């Protein structure tokens, strides 16, 4: 109950972590099944339809439900602490964001047991995703599930924007903000602009499918290529929503374990902003083969290549952060170290893809599969692992085992390169992507086998991580405030895990790497910016949970509103939009409750603070 009603950002972080872990596990299982099917030519382990459902759900789950919540988990756990705040700007909304995300994700995965998962690829290109070619409810689960989950993401993004703009501790100007906070800020801004685009797309597709609208239907005057534009206007920025937080994490981990400040801080900030900006300018590089014509292809080629410039700035800045430092290979830093070359490899294949005439050959082949796994898994997932191992003691008060952590790292990264490096060659040798099997004698066999073996090794790495988490959870919570000893930012100045109110007194920030600065001045703690006083806390509430349940029910009701049911009652309930209305009633009812009954929260009094 405590968990369902909490509005504390630290607990919500843990909820995000669990939910993300769950979906990541599902997506991982899907990946393993896909790789088993591709282990040899003409394999019959899975049939074609199931395979297409698996690739669709794997991609969708991983991107929207697997890595995004883990990113949100870290942001929630860390951002208020890093900027010296007591919570996020809107704790109620924070909880609402989590629950809508979770129920959206659950809805999407229900498709497995309710008559067929989506099968049109995670990009859901029309007309394949229209009812004409995908008649099961699969794609409805996709459109409606993602709308609900996307709502959560959008709420989260807005919340972080407001938090970072308004709640920084005194003295923390923007240019004194830790890189992870910067990354979160820019990421949230991208979310704010990109998610509405996909939501509109999903709404239009839902209308096409459920209400017979004609947005993408040629026969009705619609345009299927429009879907591709809408999808990628969101989809390309989305990849930066994913990678910028990883950049942020790496920019925290490397300085800490090099005992040096981040090299070229201001150029890092500038590069982050530039990447976000360019990220919106290049969506059509996913569509070179759609037939946009040479002018568009040339423009999008060149603008895409330009992204390599700010990305390069970042990589060299990280390398030169270590230069002259004292590099310590703890588990988090191992992951950060693995990140640099791996991500760079993904970046350079990105530049290769950006060359349109070459992309005519690369596009929709395993070369692209290799590229985006290098950036998403080799970049983001390694970054998340670095971040999780780094902040775990702060989140849970327990250090993860270093030796198991190192095993996780080595099995995972070796497995990763085995899996994906060879896929570059598969693509160049003529293997298209999204094929449920391939004919023999095309010289694809050995490389696919290697790839599958690698996938299993990655799975082993994941299992070691879970074992590590399990064993750690049974040890006493005795992590020190500053467990890595060289912590530079504010989160390391308070206990692990932090008390509910984070900071007894808001700290005064005197420079970049505020804590490090105090340490160098010989202080053990931050100078407070305020006297000890009562701390205002928001009250726990179940309303966000109820609102999300309501949307979930409404979604299901809408989806089945035109189905024939064997039982008359069911038909009556669904076909007359009664279920939909009921769901909306719950949601709007909860909203009404929220607005009618003022909740002023409560206070922690100074005596209580001192009593601890």
């Amino acid at each position, binding site marked *: 109950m405590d968990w369902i009603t909490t509005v504390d950002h630290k607990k919500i972080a843990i909820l995000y972590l669990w939910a993300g872990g769950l979906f990541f596990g599902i997506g991982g299982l899907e990946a393993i099944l896909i790789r088993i099917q591709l282990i040899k030519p003409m394999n019959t382990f899975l049939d*074609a*339809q199931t395979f*297409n459902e698996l690739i669709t759900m794997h991609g969708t789950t991983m991107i929207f439900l697997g890595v995004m919540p883990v990113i949100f988990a870290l942001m929630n756990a860390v951002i208020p602490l890093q900027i010296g705040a007591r919570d996020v700007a809107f704790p109620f909304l924070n909880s609402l964001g989590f629950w809508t995300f979770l129920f959206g994700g659950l809805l999407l995965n229900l498709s497995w047991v309710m008559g067929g998962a989506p099968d*049109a690829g995670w990009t859901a*290109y029309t007309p*394949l995703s229209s009812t004409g070619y995908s008649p099961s409810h699969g794609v409805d689960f996709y459109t409606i599930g993602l709308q609900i989950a996307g709502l959560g993401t959008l709420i989260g993004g807005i919340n972080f924007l407001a938090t970072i703009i308004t709640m920084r501790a005194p003295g923390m100007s923007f240019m004194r903000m830790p890189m992870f906070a910067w990354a979160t800020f820019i990421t949230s801004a991208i979310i704010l602009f990109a998610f509405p685009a996909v939501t509109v797309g999903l709404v239009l597709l839902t209308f096409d499918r459920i209400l017979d609208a004609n947005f993408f239907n*040629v026969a009705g005057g619609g*345009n*299927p*290529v429009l879907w591709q534009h809408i999808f990628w206007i969101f989809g390309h920025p989305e990849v930066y929503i994913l990678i910028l937080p990883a950049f942020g994490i790496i920019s925290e981990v490397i300085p800490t374990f*090099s*005992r*040096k*400040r981040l090299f*070229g*801080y*201001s150029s890092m900030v500038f590069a982050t902003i530039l990447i976000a900006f360019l990220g919106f300018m290049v969506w059509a590089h996913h569509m070179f*083969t759609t*037939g946009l014509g*040479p002018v568009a292809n*040339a423009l999008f080629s*060149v603008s895409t*290549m330009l992204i390599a*410039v700010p990305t*390069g*700035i970042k990589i*060299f800045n990280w*390398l030169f952060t*270590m*230069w*002259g430092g*004292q*590099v310590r290979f703890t588990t988090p830093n191992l992951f950060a170290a693995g990140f*640099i070359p791996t991500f*760079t490899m993904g970046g*350079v*294949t990105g530049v*290769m893809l950006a*060359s*349109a*005439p*070459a992309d*005519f*050959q690369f*596009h*929709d*082949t395993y070369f692209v599969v290799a590229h985006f796994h290098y950036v998403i898994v080799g970049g983001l997932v390694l970054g998340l692992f670095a971040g999780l191992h780094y902040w775990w003691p702060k989140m849970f008060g327990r250090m993860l085992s270093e030796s198991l952590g190192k095993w996780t790292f080595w099995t995972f990264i070796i497995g990763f390169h085995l899996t994906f490096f060879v896929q570059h060659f598969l*693509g*160049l*040798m*003529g293997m*298209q992507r*999204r*094929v*449920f099997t*391939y*004919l023999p*004698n*095309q010289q694809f066999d050995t490389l696919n086998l290697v790839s599958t073996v690698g996938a299993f090794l990655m799975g082993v790495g994941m299992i070691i991580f879970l074992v590590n988490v399990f064993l750690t959870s049974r040890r006493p919570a005795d992590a020190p405030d500053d467990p890595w000893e060289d912590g530079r930012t504010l989160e390391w100045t308070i206990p692990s895990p932090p008390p509910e109110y984070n900071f007894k007194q808001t700290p005064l920030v005197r420079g970049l790497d505020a804590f490090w600065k105090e340490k*160098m001045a010989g202080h053990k703690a931050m100078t407070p910016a305020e006297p000890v006083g009562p701390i205002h806390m928001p009250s726990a509430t179940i309303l966000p949970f109820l609102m999300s349940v309501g949307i979930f029910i409404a979604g299901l009701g809408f989806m089945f509103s035109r189905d024939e049911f064997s039982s008359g009652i069911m038909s009556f309930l669904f076909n007359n939009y009664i279920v939909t209305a009921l769901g909306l009633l719950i949601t709007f009812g909860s909203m009404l409750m929220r607005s009618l009954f003022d909740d002023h929260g409560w206070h922690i009094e100074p005596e209580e603070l001192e009593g601890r």
Partner: protein
Amino acid sequence: MMKTWQAGKRLLPMTAALGLLLAGCGREDLSVLRPQGPVAESSYGLMKLSITIMIVVLLIVFSIAAYVWIRFRRKKDQDEIPKQVEGSFKLEVLWTVIPLILVIVLAIPTVKVVFAAGNDHSDDKDAIKVKVTGHQYWWEFEYTDYGITTAQDLIIPTGKHIAFELSTKDVLHSFWVPSLAGKMDTNPDGTVNRFSFSAPNEGVYRGKCAELCGPSHGFMEFKVKSVSGEAFDKWVASMKAPESVMPEDPVLAEKFKSQCLSCHAIGSMPASPVAPSLTGIGSRESVAGILLNDDTREDGAPVLENLKTWLHDPQSVKPGNKMPSPKDMGLSDEEIDGIAEYLAGYTLD
């Protein structure tokens, strides 16, 4: 600009070495790395240039990384605080400018080739014009200048430009012959995509559909058969005046007509939009695009056997395809074999 070109030239030796290395990769009739025509060559040229530049970048990053990891590893009881360096304007400008130059080196030839690739030869009198139509899961090729239509096998004369017009009857597909040219989508919205390639050498090249189009997307293959000019003319002639002999057995002929020709076409019948034309199917490279008619290879089989495999259970060959099973249409096993034999014997010339 002179400078960047020189930088490009300096990369040439490595490009050449890489080219040799990569050329070992894959089948000649399939691999992007073993281009068999000028269009694939030009993509390949860009690929070699970009791989070379990118390997240089990787080598630099890897060596700096290895150096800092080894050189600046924290030693036992090393405890002094390293100097907190703010950054370095010069260095940061350096690694902004160098990538920028590398990008320019790649961008210039890219833009050139983009515009060259826009050359679709659609108003070239000398080019062979072919209308390609994608269907779930087969390919139709209409030679507009000759008034003939075929499926699965695209026959082209060597050395001539083939000007394509691409479209689809259902979902998106993407027309791809890796060893001859990059891919191009077939769009359902009435816009026709155009492009062109040519094959200087005789041979059979493997083509694929590269855009997810349903369960059998992976099986939506086709063959491009490049033949001499005379052979091509002969093929066209025999396609234009095809003797569409029916099966000898009148009962079988009747069945074939009523059950099969309701969707398929043979000989001089107008091509049907729902099923591949069967004209001369006995001399095609494959049945259904994927069953290879070549009994000298281990993954091939005689055309007769392939036809029987297909006709006895089309769904097991290509899941989700739109042809009803002949068994369900009331044909007996003998009749199916009879039709297979007839089709296997239905060759051109």
